[in-house]
């Protein structure tokens, strides 16, 4: 098990968004999180990176790193925790004042203080992997949404995380640009990356996931292999949700 989460809770003001969630992520596995908006799926993903500070929850990693959010984690522990995973945002959040290449090198070069030549070699190979090496000197506003998101993926990969997190990576994209981003994620899947993906693309979820997790109202309602959860859900709530997405009328 790469990561075990026990008793994860998160409230905003007095609204409880995540209610005592237990979660396991296996090394090399791909977990997709689906559910209606407001179900807590994005909050769950953001807690895996401490972008949202959990109120409670014990995180245990395979290498022995253990963080209990009931106590305030130490700053260096938190940084270690954050660098375990790379985050890809719905709205890309590229740094607009930096070129594609600088966006990718910023983490390893400035934060991790790795050796300059190696970082540039890595960054170029990552941009090549997402098919944007020829755009490396362009600024984000000179790139399409799909290209920006692919730079976003390269930037997240550059800190050499063990887990990749995707928060609705295609939701802000024009429909014709969705494919290029999903293709990059599929490539990563084939390389054996451990990933957690929040998405509305059920067909995509079916293709890449090892496990699908359906959330509603702050709980995990159901989880299992995609064929079971998406095709033959046990819970009525899951069935309704999938129906509504497949047949919007």
């Amino acid at each position, binding site marked *: 098990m790469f990561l075990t989460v026990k008793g994860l809770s998160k409230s905003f003001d007095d609204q409880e968004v995540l209610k005592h969630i237990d979660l396991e992520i296996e090394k090399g596995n791909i977990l997709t999180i689906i559910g209606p908006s407001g179900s807590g799926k994005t909050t769950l993903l953001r807690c895996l*990176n401490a*972008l949202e500070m959990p109120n409670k929850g014990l995180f245990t990693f395979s290498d022995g790193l253990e963080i209990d959010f009931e106590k305030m984690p130490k*700053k260096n522990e938190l*940084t270690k925790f*954050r*660098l375990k*995973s*790379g*985050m890809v*945002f719905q*709205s890309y*959040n*590229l*740094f*607009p*004042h*930096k070129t594609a290449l600088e966006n990718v090198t*910023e*983490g390893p070069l*400035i*934060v*991790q203080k790795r050796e300059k030549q190696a970082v540039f070699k890595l960054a170029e190979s990552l941009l090549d992997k997402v098919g944007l090496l020829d755009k490396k000197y362009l*600024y*984000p*506003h000179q790139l399409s949404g799909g290209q920006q998101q692919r730079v976003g993926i390269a*930037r*997240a990969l*550059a*800190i050499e995380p063990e887990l990749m997190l995707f928060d609705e990576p295609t939701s802000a994209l024009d429909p014709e640009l969705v494919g290029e981003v999903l293709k990059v994620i599929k490539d990563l899947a084939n390389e054996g990356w451990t990933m957690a993906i929040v998405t509305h693309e059920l067909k995509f979820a079916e293709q890449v996931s090892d496990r699908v997790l359906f959330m509603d109202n702050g709980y995990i309602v159901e989880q299992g292999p995609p064929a079971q959860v998406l095709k033959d859900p046990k819970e009525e709530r899951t069935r309704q949700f999938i129906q509504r997405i497949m047949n919007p009328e």
Partner: protein
Amino acid sequence: MYLNKLFAITADMGGWELFVNSLWPMIQGGIKYTIPLTLIAFTFGISLALITAIMRLSKYKFLSIPARIYVSAVRGTPMLVQLFIVFYGLGQIGFTIDPFPSAIIAFSLNVGAYASEVIRASILSIPKGQWEAAQTIGMGYSQALRRIILPQATRVSIPPLSNTFISLVKDTSLASLILVTELFRKAQEIAARTYDFMLLYVEAAFLYWIICFLLSLVQDRIENRLDRYVSK
């Protein structure tokens, strides 16, 4: 002295000669006092403003409250009164400071307060996603602020800060009231001898206008430079 000679000559001269002859003393006042006062006070003021803005944004009350009080006090009192407190007030209680340094202190404090609000607003205008993206690549608060947020906030704050700067150029004329012989004080001195108030004060106004016009050209250039990575 040059000025006395000037007054003697201009007594029965036409307006044009007076205009031309008083141009140099006023420009001297500008070069020796108005422009240095503006540049020095703005440099100190902006540094103070950056510190104040970051303090005000802090979650710690012992940092944010003093910053709030400072901004409120400076914005709530007239510039001229602040100038008089630093020069005459401090002088009376034993901290005698020369006119020029007094003006630098007062104007720096003034700019620091006003510009801190501009800087604070421009930091707040940067989308939250930028902080978050910085965080996910491992940056702490100060690193994210320095490398990701401030460079973007700078671009946002150039137009309003240029406003502050141009206001400062004009406000330095108040320093004439604490005996700094800057541009406007020169105009006053000549006018007191020749009684050509209209001509000399319009001439002073004209010189301020030229300075501010040149500055607005500089502003355009800076904006264009920083525009290269801003989406349109």
